């Protein structure tokens, strides 16, 4: 493959004989994605090529937004990996609705089973108190949306983008929503005189 500077890439991809540059970039994205997607099960060569094709189109559409702060190929691979993960996550979660994940008001978020039966009685009592506090602040401080998002993301591991799509919002706005939720919870917990160290130490394995 021809070595190109960032400027050469940009010129070549937008020039009259862009076929060679396109083919080179495509090859690069396919090779990168093979490694990037190694931990995904059931991703065959055809899938990798399809994803690379989608990514290639995205890269070409976004050329104007390349700020030249990294090598062009690094930037292109970043976009490719993101396109691929977004799509694979979408497929993986496509049949799951937020309702399936059950995050209604009356869900017991902090069941007693979280108390460690092997801990000494004093520690168990502390754990129970902390769980009650957490349940209470989650139930009273958060909006339904915040609670639903927290359960989907934190407990079920649903990707942010997938939760966002189902809630009719976008990933960045959802991050902000969850950040605000954490901020509120933290404030309330601190107001109860509990330190982060106490909280974590109580559930130390």
């Amino acid at each position, binding site marked *: 493959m021809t070595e190109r500077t960032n400027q050469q890439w940009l010129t070549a991809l937008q020039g009259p004989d862009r076929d060679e540059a396109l083919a080179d970039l495509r090859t690069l994205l396919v*090779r990168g994605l093979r*490694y990037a997607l*190694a931990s995904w099960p059931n991703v065959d060569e055809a899938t990798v090529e399809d994803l690379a094709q989608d990514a290639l189109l995205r890269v070409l559409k976004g050329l104007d937004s390349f700020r030249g*702060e990294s090598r062009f190929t690094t930037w292109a*691979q970043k976009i490719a*990996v993101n396109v691929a993960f977004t799509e694979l996550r979408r497929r*993986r979660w496509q049949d799951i609705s937020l309702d399936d994940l059950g995050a209604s008001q009356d869900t017991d978020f902090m069941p007693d089973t979280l108390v460690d039966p092997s801990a000494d009685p004093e520690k168990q009592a502390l754990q129970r108190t902390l769980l009650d506090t957490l349940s209470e602040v989650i139930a009273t401080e958060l909006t339904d949306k915040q609670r639903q998002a927290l359960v989907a993301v934190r407990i079920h591991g*649903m990707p942010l983008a997938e939760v966002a799509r189902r809630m009719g919002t976008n990933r960045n706005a959802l991050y902000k929503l969850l950040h605000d939720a954490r901020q509120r919870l*933290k404030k309330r917990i601190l107001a109860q005189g509990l330190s982060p160290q106490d*909280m974590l130490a109580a559930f130390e394995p």
Partner: protein
Amino acid sequence: MWMKQSLNKLRQIVRKMFSNHPTPSDVALDREMLRKMIQEIMSTRPDEIDCGECFEELDRFAEMKLAGKNAAEAMPLVQDHLDRCANCREVFEALLAALRAVA
């Protein structure tokens, strides 16, 4: 009933063996998740960046990392976001793997 239960158990084990990505399943909050959740809540800071802002910087961050420079120190908010956001961290690690492979 017991057959269905053991089948589900088996499914979970197989999933765990073949993937480190979370799958939709009937998970419940366990103690480890609780610890992470507490950690997340208590380490919340006002100046966090969101996924989009992190992604903007990710190519530069990855190159610094691969060059053996202290990316975390140069871009602390990106590092902070990656520490918090499993989705972005996954993408970042996959990007490193891709960059290392085609370097």
